[in-house]
């Protein structure tokens, strides 16, 4: 079924084929005539059956059959109902014999069974038959899964599973599914074991196994109450597959899933926040800044009218609202609305933000207000796979107003931001040494077996597979997992250098997938840089405004690191000025959480489209943006489009009116992505030179979109 080369057609075959096609066309036109005239006679039905047996891909014909069944149902007595459906099942079976990967046929079968008139005894037999014919047939696997899935409307993982496999939950409202519960998960698990034993190159079987195991572990079924025991056996199982044939990828994914199961603490946890526990936030009303000592705990905000509070979880959660998260303070008068920071507009997100409007508070100068946030004391915070937040905690911080907020004087603008090296000055030390406590929100107490399990895996893989690609990759993943299990400040146990070395080797060894390795490399590198004060310090610089010697920002400079992806954002929530220039960024996913960011340098990267800049839309304080020398507009087809929002996806509130006015005579399609990004920003300084898109038309368009803009491409407007 798989891996068989297609033989070229012989001449006589071709004539046979064309005769067949002619016959099929005739059949089809006759059928369509019947369909149009709503003829559901026996002859008409036979005709459609003949068509479907020859071409199961004809969706229209399946739909016609459904209409016909409904039509004939209304006219038949109860005795013939069952035979009516049996006839349909028979037809599906015949059609599947022709092509057992036919979507239409499988759908039709589900539809028929959903009517509940047919016996389901036959179904498992049929499935076994088809799966024997092609053990990798994912349709049959999906259908099988559907058959054993308990009917549970409350199922929390529905949206996720729908993504994974739309077939899985194609129509969960099948009443018959409850009847089909006769086959237990345990039996199905055994079945996957048999199939994998026959031939372990079977993604579908491994995947089905992971789905069934998750379910068994979750409900702690008999023999599955000890997660560690189950997982250890599974490690052993998949290890055999990986060692037997390291080039076969099907086992790798299962192994990755296992690592994930080992590392993952089911319940969501708060891993970081801004402001962090015990910090002091100083508000500076003027647009101009006074010198701040470099402190990672305490921050000074200037010229701002809102104060964001950011909650950063270890996984996407939903249900963050004023009842699950309470913000207590004497100055607070309004109800707070928490917003998920996600690119895809879903109601679950790893990062949540709320904005305190300073204007609505009566803040007095030089007075310190304390604000306390309590999280998770009442239920409601749930992770996307159904776990409840399990670590109620408190974050208290202080707010202090240094100078009153004043509207900037008309005509007095901030200076042009320059990113020259000469404008940056090294920093010797941090003001306090409490970085660790500030980020060390909660270290989940992982039981020993996790670490032991990963340790054992590492020993195995280090021994045997370090010379091949999958061995290196698995080792890198295992080491990463091990590091994630040990507390952040426990540096003795870190393997970062080893992991980075492995990924560097992999990039050379396997150039086809070097982008993936580079992404992983970037994430580990960032984790290393942000893990401690000492490692972070070399990247922190004062930014000296050339004209005002007493004004200084702290800028985090992560330039020239070959980064292709951003990570470890949870440790960087405090950053207001960030230099990511001269990297290889293709995406800035995650940056949306850096709510304090006001100056961002993304120049000399590989950002290929405006949609890749999507995360910027959430950065309300962003004033200065340098996206010069990227690849904006160089790619006619945006391969990342499926990840990002587009005005055509109807998920966005797109200001068509404004867009049309601004667009004027320009080609609208060329600019709507840019419009979508910039329309919500209040930039004062934008550099977009060195991009294919940045022609004269675009420049004049962008000036109109951004009325706040003072500097464009280093020139004052």
């Amino acid at each position, binding site marked *: 079924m798989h891996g068989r080369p297609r033989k070229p057609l012989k001449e006589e075959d071709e004539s046979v084929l064309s005769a067949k096609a002619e016959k099929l066309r005739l059949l089809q036109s006759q059928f369509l005539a019947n369909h149009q005239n709503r003829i559901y006679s026996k002859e008409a039905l036979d005709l459609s059956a003949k068509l479907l047996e020859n071409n199961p891909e004809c969706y229209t014909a399946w739909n016609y059959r459904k209409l016909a069944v409904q039509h004939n149902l209304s006219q038949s007595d109860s005795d013939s109902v069952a035979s009516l459906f049996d006839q349909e099942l028979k037809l599906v079976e015949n059609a599947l014999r022709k092509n057992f990967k036919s979507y239409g046929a499988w759908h039709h079968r589900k539809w028929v069974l959903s009517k509940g008139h047919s016996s389901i005894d036959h179904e498992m037999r049929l499935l076994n038959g088809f799966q024997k014919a092609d053990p990798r047939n994912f349709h049959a696997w999906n259908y099988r899964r559907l058959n054993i899935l308990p009917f549970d409307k409350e199922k929390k993982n529905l949206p996720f599973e729908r993504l994974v496999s739309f077939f899985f939950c194609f129509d969960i409202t099948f009443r018959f599914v409850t009847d089909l519960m006769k086959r237990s998960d345990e039996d199905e698990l055994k079945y996957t074991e048999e199939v994998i034993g026959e031939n*372990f190159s079977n993604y579908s079987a491994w995947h089905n196994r992971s789905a069934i195991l998750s379910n068994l572990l979750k409900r702690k079924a008999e023999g599955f109450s000890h997660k560690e025991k189950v997982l250890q056996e599974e490690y052993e199982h998949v290890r055999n597959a990986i060692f037997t044939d390291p080039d076969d990828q099907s086992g790798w994914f299962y192994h990755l899933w296992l690592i994930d199961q080992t590392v993952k603490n089911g319940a969501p946890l708060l891993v970081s926040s801004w402001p962090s526990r015990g910090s002091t936030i100083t508000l500076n009303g003027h647009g101009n800044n006074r010198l701040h000592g470099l402190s990672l705990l305490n921050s000074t905000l200037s010229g701002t009218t809102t104060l964001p509070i950011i909650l950063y979880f270890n996984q996407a959660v939903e249900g963050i609202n004023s009842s699950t998260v309470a913000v207590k303070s004497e100055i607070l008068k309004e109800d707070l609305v928490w917003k998920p920071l996600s690119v895809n507009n879903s109601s679950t997100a790893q990062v949540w933000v709320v904005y305190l409007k300073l204007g609505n508070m009566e803040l007095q100068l030089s007075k310190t207000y304390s604000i306390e946030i309590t999280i998770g004391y009442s239920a409601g915070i749930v992770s996307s796979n159904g776990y409840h937040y399990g670590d109620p905690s408190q974050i208290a911080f202080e707010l202090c107003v240094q100078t009153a907020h004043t509207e900037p004087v008309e005509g007095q603008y901030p200076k042009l931001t320059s990113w020259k090296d000469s404008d940056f000055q090294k920093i010797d030390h941090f003001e306090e040494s409490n970085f660790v406590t500030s980020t060390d929100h909660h270290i989940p107490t992982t039981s020993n077996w996790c670490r032991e399990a990963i340790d054992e895996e590492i020993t195995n893989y280090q*021994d045997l597979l370090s010379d091949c690609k999958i061995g290196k990759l698995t080792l890198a993943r295992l080491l990463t997992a091990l590091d994630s299990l040990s507390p952040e400040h426990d540096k003795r146990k870190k393997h970062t250098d080893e992991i980075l070395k492995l990924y560097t080797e992999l990039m050379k060894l396997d150039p086809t997938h070097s982008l993936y390795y580079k992404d992983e490399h970037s994430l580990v590198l960032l984790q290393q840089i942000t893990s401690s004060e000492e490692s972070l310090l070399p990247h922190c610089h004062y930014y000296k405004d050339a004209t005002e010697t007493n004004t200084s920002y702290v800028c985090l400079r992560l330039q020239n690191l070959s980064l292709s992806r951003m990570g470890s954002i949870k440790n960087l929530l405090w950053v207001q000025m960030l230099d990511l220039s001269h990297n290889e960024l293709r995406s800035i996913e995650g940056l949306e959480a850096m709510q304090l960011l006001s100056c961002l340098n993304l120049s000399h990267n590989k950002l290929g489209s405006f949609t890749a800049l999507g995360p910027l839309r959430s950065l309300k304080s962003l004033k200065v943006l340098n996206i010069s020398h990227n690849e904006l507009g160089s790619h006619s087809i945006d391969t990342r489009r499926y990840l990002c929002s587009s005005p055509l996806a109807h998920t966005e509130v797109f200001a068509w009116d404004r867009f049309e006015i601004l667009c004027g005579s320009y080609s609208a399609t060329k600019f709507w992505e840019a419009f979508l990004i910039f329309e919500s920003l209040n930039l004062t300084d934008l550099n977009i030179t060195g991009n294919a898109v940045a022609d004269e038309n675009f420049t004049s368009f962008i000036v109109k979109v951004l009325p706040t803009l003072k500097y464009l491409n280093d020139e004052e407007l």
Partner: protein
Amino acid sequence: MTAAEELSSYPPIDPVNFDLIIVGTGLSESIIAAAASAVGKTILHLDPNSFYGSHFASLSLEDFTSYLNSSPKSITAEKPSTTDSDYTFVNLIQKPLFSDAEFISCDSVEDSTFLRENSRKFNLDLGGPRALFSADKTIDLLLKSGAAQYLEFKGIDASFVYNANEGLMNVPDSRGAIFRDKNLSLKEKNQLMKFFKLVQQHLGGNEDEKISEEDLESSFVSFLEKIGLPPKIKSILLYAIAMGDFDQENGEVCKDLLKTKDGIDRLAQYSSSVGRFPNAPGALLYPIYGEGELPQAFCRRAAVKGCIYVLRMPVIFLLTDKVTGSYKGVRLASGQDLYSHQLILDPSFTIPSTPSSSPNDSSSESFQILSQRDIKGMVARGICITRNSIKPDVSNCSVVYSPRSLYPDQVTSVRALQIGANLAVCPVGTFVLYFSTLCNDADEGKKLLKASMNALLTLPGVQSDSEDKKPIVLWSAFYIQKLTMSKFEAISSTPTPDGNLNYNDLLDATEKLFGQMYPNEEFFPKTTSPEDTTDDDENGIIMENRS
């Protein structure tokens, strides 16, 4: 009526002239009968026995015992006077291939009664252990000749290799088997699979992935060493997969050093056999009712094409030209003279080189055929009947005892095959085990067979430990068989059953013999008649599905 009277009353065979007369219905003889009749030769196929198959027959327990016990039959008929005949009468002497037969039965009355009463339910192979690889030449020949339609096969469930410490270990003969294996370490799994891939690449045809010519000509064992495979895997590859007969690592005793080339061919045959038929879990197949079915299937094929069969009909004299001494025909025990251009005798027959005046003169020098025949040594065969399987839950399985696995000076491999009742060779609840090994003399061969039986079974008369759960042997037989090659002349001779598990070498010899006899004829030409067509290769083999 005496046997002789019965024979003489046998109705005359008509016609009396044939292209070919064949005596003996062993596998080679039957294949040649089928092949020659397929190309339009007229053939008379005779067998002095009452059953088909000669040395490849499957017999009931009783017949098996009496066959092995039977003394050399030389029909000492009165030589007719040659004066009124154009021909000289030459004696035809049958010397049994099997010797040194030894039977051991258990003392239990109950068991011996059981065996006696169920004697006919046994189909014991004379030439066992025998099995077919799903992808070997025999299968192709069965399909090509059309003989496959008369046979039903079943897959052998498992293949084991014996290890003194670990007992029976599965032969990791496929990717799936390596994955499932419980005895190999992860590293060994990795190495073995790597080697399989190396071979696959070599066979794949890509020039730069081929194994070097130099390596192909070197010995397989040194190639495996060069690659750095550990001893365990080396032994599996050499003896359980490439089926090496002699200790490949001991040049002194190894009479048949495998070349890398051959090792790889055998490995390729083995792995393409695994999974060729959906109902066969392993590489091996076995015909239902025993190996005796194979020659019968070819005989049926030959009969369809017009070959005449007469069983229980000994040939008493050969007729040779008085002047030239060349072969002309045979005189049957019924007294009828029949003539043919060529004659094939099964390997148990011998004729004196010169027409001897005294029929009792049987000194070995005078046997032309025997003296010229290449005797390749001998094979020791053994059979056991048990009530339990050597491996729980496995009914049909093969076992290889590699050299030195039983005792240090074991120089040859022992092959064993256990067949259960679902292959219709024994009553329900019993198992038949076949053993064989090459040997230089009877004692050595029997010693080795007994050692291999003792390793897995409890032989009668052998004290067993109380905790020993080895199956008890109800009955067992040991015998020694001579090995001879085929020979082509006016009177040709077919090869004896060899010491291999499958029939590849026999088939090659048979095809060669056919080519020598009929240089201008194709060995089973492709048939076009509708009755013979099978739509797909694999569909032609009938696989039994019941368990």
